């Protein structure tokens, strides 16, 4: 392969000078529509490696040789990258912010029996998909469960307002499963993905007279959607819950922001843990900006370092090491559930407050990880 010679890495304080370097391939969106997520992920990952190896970049004498690869959000490119890396002998793959890329990568991991720690992709099917696939972020079910903490689900009328695509339908199914299971009466208003005009749908939501409206929306039309909900009076009439996105989206709500209740995966400063401080410091020191998906990268690094520590060179051993692994992540105590690799982690309730011309998130409540843990996937 392209063996970058034996220009012996001056690994510093390694105890085992002879151990072979370990290749870690990170496939993520350096360019493409989700490049911003990719950037946060990468910064978090680098901070995480630093943190978990105490700045040595070396685990149990193995130097970590981390390479980053751009998939541009395109599954075709991602699969090519993965095959190339696996062909070159990589046993550890990580990354990807896009669900449509994470699934084929997980597929490659299973076919070729390599460890894969997926990135921020929230798609639920990744959980319990196969033995070799893990995740370093949260999944939609956790979002939905967090939303459920805003109302008492029992007997509540919950309307899911979402786009009519896999993401929206997945959220609807999740709400039906999680909140419906807790006794809520769930209905939905689904809007075509490409629609640019959805005022009438906002009115439909209003007419439904819900106790809680769960909004699952992504993409460029987010701002218009919130204005539509606000214009038709939905935000004034009922509790509207949605996930708080990355910093760039804070402004998308306009004045509607104050009327919305946010569940949140992460925003800088939400956790207040020591590890978080370490992460924030490291990212900022490296010139990065912490954001929604910074912890996902950080956690991925922590998991990979742990796997290498326990089972360098042996994929099965690494998998075994990760299953059931509990550690102190930036968001707090984090556990890789042994059975289906779901990542049990705390979630947050937040609100946006106006700060001059910009909006900043403020923590309302930390939601305990176990209370929003997704149902176990059993084959």
């Amino acid at each position: 392969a392209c063996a970058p010679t034996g220009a012996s890495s001056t690994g510093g304080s390694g105890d085992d000078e002879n151990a072979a370097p370990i290749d870690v391939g990170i496939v993520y969106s350096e360019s493409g529509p989700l490049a911003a997520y990719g950037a946060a992920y990468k910064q978090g990952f680098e901070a995480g490696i630093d943190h978990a190896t105490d700045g040595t970049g070396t685990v149990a004498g193995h130097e970590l040789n981390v390479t980053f690869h751009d998939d541009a959000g395109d599954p075709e490119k991602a699969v090519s990258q993965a095959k190339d890396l696996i062909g070159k002998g990589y046993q550890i793959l990580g990354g990807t912010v896009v669900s449509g890329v994470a699934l084929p990568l997980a597929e490659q991991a299973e076919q070729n029996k390599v460890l894969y720690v997926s990135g921020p992709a929230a798609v639920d099917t990744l959980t319990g998909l196969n033995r070799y696939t893990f995740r370093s972020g949260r999944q939609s079910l956790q979002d939905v469960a967090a939303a459920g903490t805003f109302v008492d689900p029992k007997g509540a009328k919950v309307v899911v307002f979402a786009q009519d695509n896999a993401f929206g339908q997945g959220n609807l199914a999740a709400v039906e499963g999680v909140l419906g299971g807790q006794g809520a009466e769930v209905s939905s208003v689904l809007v075509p993905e490409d629609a640019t005009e959805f005022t009438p749908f906002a009115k439909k939501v209003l007419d439904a007279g819900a106790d809680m409206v769960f909004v699952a929306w992504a993409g460029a039309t987010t701002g218009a959607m919130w204005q539509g909900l606000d214009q038709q009076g939905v935000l004034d009439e009922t509790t509207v819950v949605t996930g708080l996105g990355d910093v760039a989206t804070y402004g998308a709500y306009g004045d509607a922001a104050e009327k919305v209740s946010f569940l949140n995966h992460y925003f800088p400063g939400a956790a207040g843990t020591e590890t978080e401080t370490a992460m924030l410091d490291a990212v900022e020191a490296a010139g990065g900006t912490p954001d929604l998906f910074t912890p996902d990268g950080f956690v991925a690094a922590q998991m990979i370092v742990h796997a290498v520590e326990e089972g360098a060179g042996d994929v099965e051993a690494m998998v075994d090491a990760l299953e059931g692994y509990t550690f102190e992540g930036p968001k707090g105590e984090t556990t890789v559930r042994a059975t289906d690799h779901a990542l049990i982690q705390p979630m947050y309730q937040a609100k946006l407050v106006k700060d001059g011309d910009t909006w900043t998130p403020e923590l309302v409540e930390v939601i305990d990880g176990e209370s929003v843990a997704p149902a176990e996937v059993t084959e």
Partner: protein
Amino acid sequence: MNRVTTRLGGLALLVLLGCLPLLAIPVPGVLPGYTYEPGTLQLLALCWLTAALALSYHLLFGVAGLMSFGHALYFAAGIYGLAIVLDRTDVPLLPAAALVLVGGVALAFVVGAISLRVTGISFAMVTLAFAQAGNVLVRRDQGDLTGGEEGLALATDGVPAALVGVVNTRNLYWLALVVLLFVYLVVLWIERSRAGHVAAAVRENEVRVRIIGGRPYLTKLVVFVLAASLATVVGMAYLLLQSGASPATSTADFTLTLLVMVVLGGVGSRWGAVVGAVLYTLLDQRLAELAHSEAVAGLPAVLRIPLSEPMFLLGTCFVLVVLFLPGGLAGAAARLAARRRPGSDQDGSGPASGVPAPEGAVA
């Protein structure tokens, strides 16, 4: 004599390509590694499949003069069709493929029968609209069939083990090469066949064809369905290679890139389509590397921003070819050859030059 040397050359090339997985040839800057490595084989296999797809588009556009903006639909039909059949049923690979092919033919027949009612730009637009409808259906994940924007993984149970996993990339490479060869031969065959000649005649002068008693509509429909079925076949191989289906393959943009490949190579030239497709795929896959390279990162913003966008470079390249290389690469090659050949008084107005006249006046 000339024909014999071309044939021998083609055969030698084929043998060389077939042996690549057994050789260790590095092509720095173009390929990610040695030719036997899975990453490289994957990229090359992708090139061969794209070339095969471009050839099927060449049949449509270059031979019959039908500018379709919806060819991706049949490619996607192959990908998704096979993925769904393998996912939902226990039918083994080959019968499943046959089933999907029949479906592809039926789809092409219906869409072709409607869109061929109009000509020229209108034809392009109608095919675009149909493909768009297909894309909407795929993304909407109706009945949980297509997986929406997340795509669909290949259910490997029905697939022979020799075609699964990175260690078997070599086999997938050979499969892709065989598909390319197959499509090439079929296109060659059709082009040389009576129907192919009539199709070319229809492209040139539809009224004339009617005057000699021919049936342009039927001819175009035959070519349309054939080209679509080839696309479906390529789509199925693509599914195996990528071991998954993604909705990007069903977009109008994808058809546009096919158009770009064929024009890049030279409209009307089979080799042009192949070379254009391979070049495009390599550029598309490798320009990203250039974009992220240190050399680019060090440039001032005016240069760095455009250079770090692969699509910008490709688009610009394409514009330049259209403006300054009429007949694409094949046209340029023909002109070069003509100049080299002494005593030849033809100044490159070979059969490959130019774009077929739009049928249905675009006055």
